[in-house]
């Protein structure tokens, strides 16, 4: 559950490797086929039985924690009622692990409500459809929110302190807080479901996101294109930030595209502006929007590529046609000086990290502007203004 440091005189490079290994181990554990209660099914291995939910799909969606009026969320393990707009869908017949994808921007509420100076926006896939996103928490994090009544503004007001979510600790065998952020595209058209980890999702258009959006809800098959893991560990109070992507997502800036087709890039398009959000108004119900022309600004390092190859080999050894061979680690951001008294971000390495599906428009190397998991989330507060321990979720309380 914690990072294993190899070697007696670690270097920046060797530690990056150790954290990247931790990321891959986490990815495998979280995407392991699950039992009905969300625990890993140790009778099978990752990549087998691709139609059953994986471990993280039993985590709680943020929408089911921060309820209207600050209502108390249903306890862990209990199904949440469907959004009202999805009432026409018979909940008793939803496939196992069905998700409720409501967001068309990574953190639309937070960014909209606090006027963050980020140029963000929806990500449009090659079928002209809006990508969808979800944020989920594990039981440890969920319990902390429930115990301290942080799911409501009133509860946060009464709490009136800095949040301090539980950390994973190997010595105590405690599993700490984990957040999962995922990005999805609808299957069909230019997307072959055989190349993606797929699930069924209630995709609904949320009128509170943008003016002019009419509520609607459709059950659709979606494929995973982006996967963030944020994990708070005993020695990394700034959390460890791992990010994975589908291998076909985008080419890298300055490098010749090598694939015949990408998930978010069209080599034939000569007038497409790279990493530019679509013009407003943004409405996910639009039948077709010009696809985003996305490229990766910071290349995946050769060391990470080497590690990806090693893990792909291991995954293929377990299941030769494993769908997880289509996913790769971009990098892991971790604090190099976690105990710094003068820098609450802990001097993260690498300094910048972005997932092209989740931070498409804020990639780069400019401080306070380009994507850095730790630097951005260090600014997070609850609705009372108290630091919220590197998560913006608490701002969703009503």
């Amino acid at each position, binding site marked *: 559950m914690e990072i294993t440091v190899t070697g007696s005189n*670690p*270097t*920046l490079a060797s*530690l990056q490797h150790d954290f990247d290994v931790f990321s891959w181990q986490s990815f495998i554990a979280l995407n392991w086929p699950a039992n009905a209660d969300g625990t890993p099914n140790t009778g099978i291995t990752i990549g087998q039985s691709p139609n059953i939910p994986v471990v993280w799909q039993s985590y709680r969606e943020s929408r089911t924690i921060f309820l209207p009026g600050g209502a108390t969320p249903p306890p862990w393990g209990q199904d949440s009622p469907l959004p009202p707009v999805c009432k026409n869908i018979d909940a008793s017949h939803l496939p196992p692990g069905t998700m409720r994808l409501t967001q068309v921007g990574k953190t639309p509420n937070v960014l909209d409500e606090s006027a963050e100076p980020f140029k963000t926006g929806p990500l449009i896939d090659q079928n002209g459809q809006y990508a969808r996103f979800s944020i989920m928490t594990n039981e440890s994090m969920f319990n902390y929110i429930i115990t301290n009544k942080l799911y409501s503004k009133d509860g946060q007001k009464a709490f009136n302190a800095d949040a301090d979510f539980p950390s994973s600790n190997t010595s105590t065998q405690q599993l700490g807080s984990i957040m999962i952020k995922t990005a999805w595209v609808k299957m069909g058209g230019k997307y072959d479901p055989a190349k993606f980890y797929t699930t069924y999702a209630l995709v609904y258009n949320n009128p509170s996101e943008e003016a002019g959006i009419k509520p609607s809800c459709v059950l659709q098959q979606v494929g995973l294109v982006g996967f963030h893991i944020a994990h708070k560990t005993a020695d990394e109070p700034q959390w460890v930030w791992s990010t994975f992507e589908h291998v076909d997502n985008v080419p890298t800036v300055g490098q010749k595209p090598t694939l015949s087709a990408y998930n978010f890039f069209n080599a034939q398009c000569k007038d497409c502006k790279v990493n530019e959000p679509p013009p407003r108004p943004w409405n996910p119900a639009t039948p077709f929007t010009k696809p985003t022309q996305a490229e990766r600004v910071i290349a995946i390092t050769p060391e990470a590529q080497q590690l990806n190859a090693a893990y792909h080999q291991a995954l293929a050894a377990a299941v030769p046609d494993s769908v997880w061979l289509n996913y790769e680690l971009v990098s892991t951001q971790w604090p*190099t*000086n976690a105990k710094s*008294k*003068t*820098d*609450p*971000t802990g*001097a*993260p*390495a*690498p*300094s910048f990290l972005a997932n092209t599906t989740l931070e498409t428009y804020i990639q780069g*190397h*400019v*401080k*306070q502007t380009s994507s850095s998991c730790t*630097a951005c989330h*260090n*600014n997070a*507060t609850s609705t009372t*203004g*108290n*630091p919220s321990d590197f998560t913006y979720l608490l701002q969703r309380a009503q």
Partner: protein
Amino acid sequence: MNSDMDNFVGLSAVLTGFNQSIIAPDIDPVDIKSVYLPLFTQKIAKESGNPALTGQILQKYSTLSAQGLTPQQIGTAMLDPGNGAPFVLACRKLIFMWYAGAWPTIIPASGTSPASTVSDIISEDSYTSSLVWQVMQSHPMGDSNYRYGYWAKPPVPLSDYTGN
């Protein structure tokens, strides 16, 4: 024998008053020292007309350090006028570079204007790594790692910033 980088970092710590663990930590994701040493070497060679001067400065520091002198004694010896004006000026420019994240250029007096110094920021990282922010117990303009509401609390002691 220490490497040029070891001597450069050691000398920089002595002259700035910061601990090596602050200006050049063992695990160093920014690694500004690797920008500063070649830049210092190149600038000093060009400005002094003596390509060997940086080597002479680092060698003197190495010698003094090996004698077990205190940082104060080493600093005093390095800035001794007896080392020669170019030597001392280079050491002073080293201090300026670390504190300002910029390189100072001295413009001699002319018939109409007095001597002046202009400085050029070396890079984005040098700007945010400038030690001046640390001794102010503050943060660079436009780049703060402090959390919301930090201004309502006193800063941590200066010694936490300098490491000494």
